[in-house]
């Protein structure tokens, strides 16, 4: 990723922090980044919308990198999924910008989230397939690892960062959630 693109996205991020999503314009980003509009349009031909999309995308990439990092050292597949759930939930809750936007400007954020949802789903499913590849199966297991990963991915994305009755920072609760609600097919 080019240095210019990174600086543009940093500036966009800071603009959102100060003025919210609706305040983000190419002019404001250019002024904050100290980069000309022409240069910005060269890197982001789609203008303001593309800047927002790719800034969101960069956050999604960071989210993933953190998830992969958290599970890297965990050899037991079921334990790895538990670590993944805790990391994902913690990251979503701690992401001040995300929480603020969801509270104040959900409608403005949605198009970008909709663009990245399939990417996040596919990435998570692929990662789960790798993690679960060597898992011990129960004797009457019927579903393939692909199918288990697909269901796990759907349910993890439903549970993390949302409300409901589960405290996902409690390791015991997460272990139960993983056994009962995420890896039931294993």
């Amino acid at each position, binding site marked *: 990723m080019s240095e210019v693109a990174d600086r543009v996205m940093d500036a966009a991020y800071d603009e959102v922090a100060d003025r919210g999503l609706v305040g983000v314009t190419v002019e404001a980003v250019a002024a904050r980044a100290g980069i000309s509009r022409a240069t910005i349009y060269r890197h982001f031909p789609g203008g303001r919308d593309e800047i927002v999309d790719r800034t969101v995308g960069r956050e999604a990439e960071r989210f993933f990198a953190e998830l992969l990092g958290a599970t890297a050292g965990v050899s037991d597949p079921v334990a790895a999924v538990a670590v993944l759930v805790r990391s994902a939930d913690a990251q979503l809750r701690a992401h001040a910008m995300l929480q603020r936007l969801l509270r104040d400007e959900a409608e403005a954020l949605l198009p970008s989230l909709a663009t990245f949802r399939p990417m996040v789903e596919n990435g998570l499913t692929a990662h789960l397939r790798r993690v679960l590849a060597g898992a011990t199966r129960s004797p009457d297991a019927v579903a393939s690892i692909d199918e288990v990963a*697909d269901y796990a991915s759907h349910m993890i994305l439903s549970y993390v960062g949302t409300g409901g009755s589960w405290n996902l920072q409690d390791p015991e609760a997460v272990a139960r959630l993983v056994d009962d609600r995420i890896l039931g097919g294993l």
Partner: protein
Amino acid sequence: MVVTSDELRSRLIDGPSRGCSVDTDDRLAADAASGVARAVIDATLDSIARFGLSKTTVDDIVRASGVSRATIYRTFPGGRDGVVTAALLAEVDRFVDGLRAEMDVAAGLEATVTAALGHALEFLATHAALRAVLEIEPGIVVPLFAFHRLDRVLDLGVELLGPHLAAYLPAEDAASLAEHLVRVCLTYATAPSLYVDPTDRVSVRRLVRHHILDPHLSANPSL
């Protein structure tokens, strides 16, 4: 949003208030009126399916239903929003009636869960107006369920499903499973999977048997 979550909750749990009509003339009049109402509601849903919610006008509904503007406004006070609200509530009724009917005749935990989930998934997957709104104007629907706002929907689900599940599980487990089923329903309604065909009960039963209920059934095979 045209309907508050309290109104929706009351609708889901208590059902619409139905007046009692004994006199034949009144009953005939009520039938005629409800026939007109049904035509207008169907026309509204049809228009939303074609144009989306924001772009649906009363003119569209007049054209699709053959019912006059005056009659529409008389039957559904509140103008366009009144008609749309009525259509939404009618669909909620249809959903809940169907759900309860299916769960009432299901015997055993697996059959009950399969019936509930199968009904919900199929309803959401095949609902033309809903699919159109999700595609054209996701900003209208998705915020209702996103992140912390999911709690309200989960509570409604627990109230609807909990009593049926409690026939087979301790109350706490019934509530937890009900919450989970709402999540399953929402996630598969918005993110399709190669492994789950929402219109095929065999596919849904597979999901229920091997992924959702497996832990419950392993613990208690008699369910």
